[in-house]
């Protein structure tokens, strides 16, 4: 029995498998090596229930999902909406196709500063039912309070933060109301023209219309392993992406065409990250794309962008195959001072780690770094984050299937799957940890977005996770060991107030690590915008700060295990007012 060559390559994992709607390469996992035996001091416990995060994230059908819109899910945010120094939690939500259940809304929880939260959605003016996707946080009007942009299937929404605990929907007033239904997915604030005001980039996933949507099994893009499932993304018209320039008066102008964004077609855009990948001082935009090329828009420094994902090695797998790009972790995993990209994918494919050469050229180091050992789970939220403060950023992945109907027919295709940690061994290699990192890691859920931040201000990174049709998880990091850390909040003055795009290189114990303030990463989510550096045993650290305005500042010999605030142009750091809890 012979097959056509293309199909044969597909079977053997060299080409996308086309008999389904989503890209996966049918990759076999690499064999696992022996455990390193090196202790990992972080332990994660899900305390959502006791912390008051008890309401489920309603999102599509529970037992089956007939439409792709029910499957993708949404993100969340750790941000300090009331500027009290304690992270609050915004958790997006969806609805159902057949009816709108009570409680189908996004939810804002205020941090009570004692390990618990109080829901303030209604008081804050954030009640809203719909198919929410992504969130990005940024102070677009530079008034000192973080504003919220949420993408939707239907109409995206901009909420202005008044600073008194309330928000107002200013979408129309800001000129962001569309004239047709689109599926907004990822979004990020960025100051692409470096005028000190945050502009807005929005990715769009695909064109979806209930009236025209096909049913499970109706074509080859509506099957998975020959089982009928919801259709897509393949077979559905892809979205185009949008850039809105901030007019500095509370309104925005759609410059997608002039900036060269909307001419890039044919991709299913998901999570967006704006960061200066080529280190030329101008923010670039990376879009993780599902089952199509991921995009890298390089900033031409004149208000336009050129898309160079393929040319720069960050669009595809190392054999040129589209992958199901969902979530993004951005960080300096190998401590070379450059921002690398970690992207999550569908089951039976590896996630990918792209190493940045410092000029915005990327090399796929997935296999050489040991990440090829895991192909069982569909990955969503992601981070390059130092979970054990040893000075080497680790990888975190929130996972979950998109097909609840499969597990009855395929025992190896559970809908709920565990979280995954790849701890950084510091030699370019990672080691997978699931069961040994605490009960919150091994617990199975159908997770989507996640946000990283220190909600209890105890000097380690916790994780907030969206679970479909379940309450969220709040993984408290109970870190032991004596590693030090430094948490840095940046406040722009000439640059945008949120300091989005500011870049910090920390030097500690003979190492250096770079981080950048991001508006969105993980999966459709926003992390604590205070940069968290694990320092290992180092007892001092130097910081070099590069502001979006072009200004640079250096701070030497900083004490460790403290939170500091750095204001642009002010040479003295401020020890943060928020205390560690007793």
């Amino acid at each position, binding site marked *: *029995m*012979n*097959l*056509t*060559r*293309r199909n*044969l*390559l597909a*079977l*053997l*994992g*060299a*080409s996308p498998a*086309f*008999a389904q709607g989503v890209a996966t390469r*049918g990759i*076999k996992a*690499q*064999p696992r090596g022996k455990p390193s035996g090196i202790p990992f001091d972080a332990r994660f416990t899900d305390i959502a229930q006791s912390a008051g995060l008890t309401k489920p994230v309603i999102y599509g059908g529970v037992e089956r999902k007939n439409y792709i819109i029910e499957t993708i899910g949404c993100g969340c945010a750790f941000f300090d909406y009331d500027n009290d120094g304690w992270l609050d939690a915004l958790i997006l939500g969806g609805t159902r196709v057949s009816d709108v259940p009570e409680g189908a809304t996004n939810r804002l929880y205020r941090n009570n500063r004692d390990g618990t939260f109080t829901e303030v959605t209604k008081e804050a003016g954030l009640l809203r039912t719909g198919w929410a996707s992504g969130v990005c946080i940024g102070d677009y009007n530079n008034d000192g309070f973080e504003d919220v942009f949420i993408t939707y299937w239907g109409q995206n929404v901009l909420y202005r933060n008044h600073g008194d605990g309330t928000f107002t929907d200013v979408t129309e007033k800001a000129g962001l109301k569309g004239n*047709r*239904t689109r599926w907004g997915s990822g979004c990020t604030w960025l100051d692409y023209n470096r005028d000190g005001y945050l502009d807005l980039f929005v990715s769009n996933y*695909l*064109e979806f*219309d209930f009236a*025209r949507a096909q049913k499970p099994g109706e*074509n*080859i*893009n509506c099957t998975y*392993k*020959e089982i009928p499932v919801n259709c897509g993304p*393949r*077979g*559905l*018209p*892809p*979205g*185009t992406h949008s850039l809105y320039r901030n007019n500095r008066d509370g309104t925005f102008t759609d410059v997608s065409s002039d900036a060269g964004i*909307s001419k890039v*077609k*044919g991709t299913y855009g998901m999570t967006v990250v704006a960061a200066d990948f080529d280190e030329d001082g101008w923010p670039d935009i990376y879009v993780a794309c599902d089952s*199509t*090329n991921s995009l890298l828009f390089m900033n031409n420094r004149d208000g336009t962008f050129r898309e160079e994902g*393929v*040319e720069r090695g960050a669009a*595809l797998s*190392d*054999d*040129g*195959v589209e992958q199901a790009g969902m979530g993004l972790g951005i960080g300096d995993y190998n401590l070379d001072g450059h921002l690398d990209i970690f992207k999550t994918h569908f089951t*039976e494919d590896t996630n990918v780690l792209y190493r940045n050469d410092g000029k915005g050229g990327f090399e796929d180091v997935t296999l050489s770094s040991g990440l090829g050992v895991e192909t069982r789970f569909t990955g969503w939220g992601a981070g390059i984050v130092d979970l054990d403060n040893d000075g080497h950023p680790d990888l975190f992945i929130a996972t979950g299937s998109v097909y609840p109907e499969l597990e009855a027919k395929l025992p190896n295709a559970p809908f709920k799957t565990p979280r995954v940690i790849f701890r950084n061994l510091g030699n370019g290699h990672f080691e997978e940890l699931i069961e040994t990192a605490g009960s919150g890691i091994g617990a199975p859920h159908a997770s989507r977005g996640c946000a990283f931040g220190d909600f209890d201000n105890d000097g380690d990174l916790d994780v907030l996770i969206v679970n479909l049709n379940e309450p969220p998880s709040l993984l408290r990091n109970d870190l032991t060991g004596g590693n030090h850390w430094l948490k840095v909040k940046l406040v722009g003055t000439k640059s945008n107030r949120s300091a989005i795009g500011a870049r910090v290189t920390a030097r500690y114990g003979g190492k250096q690590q770079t981080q950048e303030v991001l508006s969105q990463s993980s999966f459709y989510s926003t992390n604590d915008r205070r940069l968290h550096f694990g320092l290992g045993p180092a007892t001092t650290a130097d910081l070099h700060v590069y502001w979006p305005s072009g200004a640079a500042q250096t701070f030497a010999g900083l004490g460790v295990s403290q939170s500091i605030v750095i204001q642009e142009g002010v040479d003295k750091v401020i020890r943060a007012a928020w205390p560690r809890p007793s």
Partner: protein
Amino acid sequence: MTALLLLISLASAADSPDLLTSGRSAMERGEYAEAERLFREQIGKTPHSAEALGNLGAVLARENKLDEAIAAYKSALTADPKLDAIYLNMGIAYFRAGRFEQAIDPLEHYLKFHPDEIRARQLHAIAFVENAQYEQGIAELDRLNREKPDQPAILFALASAHIRAGDEERGKQLLEQLGGGNYPPGPVHLLQGMLFYRSKLYDAAERELEEALRLDPKSAPALAALGRLRLRVNDDPAAIDYLQRALAIQPQDAESNYQLGVLLSRNNQEERGREYLERALEQRTHYPDPMYFLAKIELKENHPAEAVNYLEKAALLAPHQENITFLLARAYKQAGQEERARKELAEFRRLQAERLKRDQAAISPDAPLDPTQPIAGRER
């Protein structure tokens, strides 16, 4: 095929009739070693004797020493290029060695002078099919089938060729003809299994193939097909086992060698994998798939020049294959040939855009790629 193996009898003045006659007699008695000895003795006396060399080739082929037989045939043809029968013998030897691509030329040469030789035509056609040149193979088998409609072997080969070429409908028709005749049931189940596979009816395919294997436990095609079925569901250990069993019976199957090579490579047995990939390439020199995977291994081992070598050949054979183009760009880049890498990536972009357009049009002809048009405005 042995019935077609022709012994040469063209004794020249320099040949010793005794040695040649004795050798042929020994061969007819099945005493191949003795025959070989006698022919070699003759060649020692008359090194350029086409008859002795040709007969040596024939006995070596009987002894399954196919490479040596081919070498002897070549020497015979150098001595006397007019010996048509040697071309046929050489074609058969190549065929039996699984070197179908090389079998085509000598068979073609023979058929120029013997155009009505049915079995040579059949071999010639099957060599095309085995070399994935389906159009030529099917055309010849079609002609043969029309001329000899009562020969199930030809019908079987034709049905198999259609299925392999992707024309399931025609394959099915021919299979029905076969089923109605007295053809052995094993191969019929094999073909039926192949048809089901093509139709994505994998469970049914497995049943038919298992039945074919039950009826003939040494059916290499059934074993190979079952291996591919296991491969489809990523059951690598079973796929490897089936393919190894298939190759133990029929080591010349280029595609099974290729698949086993990739399977072993991806299961961390790269050195063994490489051997099978190289074997596949020896058997079918114009086979881009093993070239691609060998290039991947070379790149991984930081041998970009070797990878470029494989990939440039593969790209010539399969110029529209995105994966090859992309990997070639990577290889050029790794080899420091930036400008070539850029050009190749541009070509990759072009191929990818064309494919996306085709895929989209095939699935949703009413949904243009440009979604900036309001959905309501689109005609259904």
